[in-house]
């Protein structure tokens, strides 16, 4: 399959950037901010699982670390919000590197890797729910300070542009990976780890690097969440919901593709909103829809929406090119 070109990325980001010029509706903007946030977190998961084949069920560990570091540094140590946000990304990357080093050194693969990432996220969640520094069960409220230098804004538009920028950066990173030698190694690990090692790929290091990048991207999502909602607790930051959102978006959109997470996040969030509209805001129903979509996509469209589009395009191409082929035969 052909990768996404730079022009595609510029085009998509430009189209999304035009939205606030067309509408000032808070509902629309809020929907898009959350969808883009999910796209960002999902892009992180996509790096590790889509390209590297390592399915993590605990990306909440990185999201939560990004969120908590951002919030704690500001509220407990008076650090500037932007610096705290940057350190939150670094913190998430560090946690990713640490978990990755442990898991990959022990040679954990497949289900075992999924289990151990899940367990790490749960340990962090329980620790965050009792430790005083995280505000324990109460959570942390970031004090209202509506100034740009405090990473807080009056309206939603600046937040929208910031999360869009983050998504754009993540798209560029993934495109860079896709075209690099590192990306080729990563895909080799996904397709056949033993064979990759046999031809000289340092699989443990490649996986570790992928996990660190993956964690950093997801942690950026966590830090942004903290600034946007100004409140986190252990259930939000380290809860299973974000681990599921992180994998659902790329799987629905197209796993191992540049645009998959973005596409998937928009589709999934739209379905969730429709479910809410149909039934009235009942708790749980949007998640029922998400789980159902996950099963259906795995069953009927394992390559996600991107895969469906590709096969459709191939079919059209074949239709158009088939008459001359017949003439030759």
């Amino acid at each position, binding site marked *: 399959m052909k990768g996404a070109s730079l022009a595609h990325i510029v085009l998509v980001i430009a189209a999304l950037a035009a939205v606030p010029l067309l509408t000032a509706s808070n509902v629309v903007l809020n929907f898009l901010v959350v969808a883009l946030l999910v796209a960002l977190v999902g892009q992180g998961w996509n790096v590790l699982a889509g390209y590297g084949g390592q399915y993590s069920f605990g990306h909440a560990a990185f999201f939560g670390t990004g969120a908590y570091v951002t919030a704690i540094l500001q509220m407990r140590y008076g650090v500037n919000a932007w610096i705290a946000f940057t350190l939150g990304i670094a913190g998430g990357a560090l946690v990713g590197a640490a978990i990755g080093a442990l898991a990959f050194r022990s040679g954990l693969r497949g289900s*075992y890797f999924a289990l*151990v990432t899940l367990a790490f996220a749960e340990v962090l969640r329980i620790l965050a729910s009792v430790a005083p520094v995280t505000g324990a069960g109460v959570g942390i409220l970031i004090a209202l300070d509506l100034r740009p230098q405090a990473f807080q804004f009056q309206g939603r538009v600046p937040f929208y542009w910031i999360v869009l920028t983050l998504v754009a950066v993540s798209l560029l990173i993934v495109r860079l990976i896709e075209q690099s030698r590192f990306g080729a190694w990563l895909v080799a690990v996904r397709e056949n780890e033993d064979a990759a090692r046999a031809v000289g790929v340092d699989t443990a290091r490649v996986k570790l690097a992928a996990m660190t990048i993956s964690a950093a991207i997801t942690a950026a999502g966590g830090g942004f969440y903290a600034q946007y909602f100004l409140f986190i607790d252990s259930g939000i930051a380290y809860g299973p919901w974000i681990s599921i959102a992180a994998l659902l978006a790329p799987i629905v959109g197209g796993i191992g593709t540049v645009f998959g997470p973005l596409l998937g996040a928009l589709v999934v969030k739209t379905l969730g909103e429709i479910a809410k509209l149909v039934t009235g805001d009942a708790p749980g129903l949007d998640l029922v829809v998400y789980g159902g979509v996950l099963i259906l996509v795995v069953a009927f469209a394992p390559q996600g929406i991107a895969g469906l589009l590709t096969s459709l395009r191939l079919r059209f191409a074949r239709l158009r090119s088939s008459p001359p082929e017949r003439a030759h035969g």
Partner: protein
Amino acid sequence: MLSLTILVPAILNGLLTGAVYGLVALGLTLIYGVLHIINFAHGALLTAAMFAAFFAHRLLGLDPYLAAVVLTPMFFVLGYCLQRFVIGPAAHGEDRNVLLVTLGLAVVIENMLLYAFGADTRTINLDYAFRIVDLGIAFLALPRVVGFGVVLAVTLLLWLVLSLTDTGKAIRAVAKEKLGAQLSGIDVAHIYAVTFALGTACLAIAACLLIPTYYVNPHIGNAFVLVAFTIVVLGGMGSVTGALVAGLFVGVVESLCGLYLGESLGQIGIFVMFILVLLFRPSGLFGERA
């Protein structure tokens, strides 16, 4: 140091809790041993079974131990259908897909229960729930002692089924050598579904044992399933006796951690143990080698 009068009851209570953990883990390990998949829907199915037991009592006035007789076959059928018609076909034979499909099932089941019944925590009142057994050195809750006995009986029964019946032999054949089993005329898809059904039936029994002394809410299964994962890994993935022994062990560890560190950190002890075992002995402490 704590005295023996506190320590011994804590250990005994840990064993009683551990037995039920063991039963939950038994279903998980059986499925892993044969299908080589980790069933992430296990916890959600346990929650569903606990709700079923709860409403059997609330609406039909059925005693939980009586309900087990009805619910176990029902969950057997449910498990069979799930594997035969949902997980099996959706997975296309890829392990990664199975992870995702069972995760999706977990999300669907858990949140349907949340949607239908709300997040409230529910309990049932039984006159025998507070009856105690006096062992001289410790007082133990009667329902938990009964549960311990039932778990041992179920494990024995399962072991007999696996070693004596034709289906049991087929299950073991598929676990050992899937292709060979298929070549000798065993319907692998059917055996997979039967195994999944047995694992799910274990959950129905566990639910009926838990409900007299425990509570139920839509997220309750998660608390058990991570413990069950720990037990399964500890006991050696796929080992039935390993699951039971590891279940008892984890029950005692949790009880002692809770005693020394407090309730919420008691769980940390389990997870840390889980991670350490996964990292350093993924084949389990006292199981067969994976």
